[in-house]
């Protein structure tokens, strides 16, 4: 009887706390905002609990020798929102307004729903630098989207796990 209750308790706990953890990651070689050919990594994570809704993101874009850019869920879009003092629209002298869109995932509305495979995103801002800026650079702004071939890495865990990611592209 005791063994039966213990088994049931473990099964219940597994249902409540068990989950699958996913890491999505892809890289491309492309010019950065300084015109230097660099490796750029795109990644995000997703957790699928046995009970409850999926959670994912935000997605991060890391360019070698550059600073991270965040693409976050905004209602039904996944966008990189620019910050005044940090970003400006390509070809313009003024900083972006707070929250102005600097890029987005193309044809995707929810990070938690994106499977492995090709992922396209746009970027149409350039870094704005100031006296406190260090190494500010990211993927070069351009009209056509960049395409990443994103791979999926899946692990089952009992209480969840901190995502294990490949390191960001090294600055060489």
């Amino acid at each position, binding site marked *: 009887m005791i063994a039966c209750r213990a088994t049931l308790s473990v099964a219940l706990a597994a249902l409540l706390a068990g989950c699958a953890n996913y890491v999505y990651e892809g890289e491309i070689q492309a010019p950065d905002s300084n015109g230097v050919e660099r490796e750029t990594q795109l990644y995000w994570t997703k957790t699928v609990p046995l009970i409850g809704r999926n*959670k994912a993101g*935000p997605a991060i874009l890391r360019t070698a020798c550059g600073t991270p850019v*965040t693409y976050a869920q905004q209602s039904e879009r996944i966008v990189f929102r620019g910050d005044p003092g940090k970003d400006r629209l390509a070809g313009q002298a003024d900083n972006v307004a707070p929250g102005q869109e600097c890029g987005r995932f193309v044809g995707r509305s929810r990070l938690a729903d994106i499977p492995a495979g090709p992922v396209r995103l746009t970027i149409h801002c350039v870094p704005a630098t100031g006296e406190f800026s260090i190494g500010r650079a990211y993927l070069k702004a351009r009209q056509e989207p960049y395409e990443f071939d994103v791979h999926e890495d899946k692990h089952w865990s009992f*209480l969840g796990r901190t995502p294990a990611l490949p390191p960001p592209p090294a600055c060489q």
Partner: protein
Amino acid sequence: MPVDPAKPRKVLVVHGVELGTNADLDQDTLVNDLIKARLAGLPLQYEVDLYRYENINDTAQANFKVLVDLVAATPLNAILANTTIDMVGDVVIALEDGSTAAVIRDGLRQRIIDVFESEQPCYVVAHSLGSIYAFDVINALMETQGYFDRDSRKTWPVQGLVTLGSPIGLAMFKVGSRQRVAALGAGNKWFRWLNYWDRTDPVVSGEIFGTQLSGLRIAEKYVTDDPNQGWVIRDRPTDTGRVWLMAHVAYWHNPMVGDGLVDLITN
């Protein structure tokens, strides 16, 4: 004494609800490891310090613990009761907003001013209940004459704020001066606040069973249309990979948080 952007950046960590004493806290090491893992060769010089206030809380709770030791029937009960007092007591002290909370805020304010006087750019990273103290102190500094000239970041004692698993969206904390952020006034520089939270973090939602939050805005509710506000506020709903209370302590190890820190302190 103006801030010198060429000096090493100081990341000042403010812990949250904790068990034990000051000596048990190591969040500065965790943040240092997180930044180091995500720097990827960027030429950033930085130092990480921790503002410890657990001993102030423990002193305020000492009388209750003595009482519990006297009435608890078994040593196990006493340990459980003292642990509960340690955690719940930290929250009650913050909510009461009495003398102990004032001592904690004064201590944090002084640590920030010490960094300012060393001319190092200071970035505050605050977890859980610590985010309430950090929010209060930074806003009070913004309203203090002589600091935070909007057009000169060299007058800013704090250059940016990162909050992790903050309960600031809960009604019990959103009272008094905490219902708004202090406006920086007219100018063209912006104070950045990144708020990371996991949808299943019960401290963020106030739901003890970790019911998932469905919206996307907590800190961003502070944004107004006033051009003189001067804050860039970003909510970052984050998948820590963990669930329930484990999510609340998982931010320290999360690479997306690490990348956000790198982004903030390199600007």
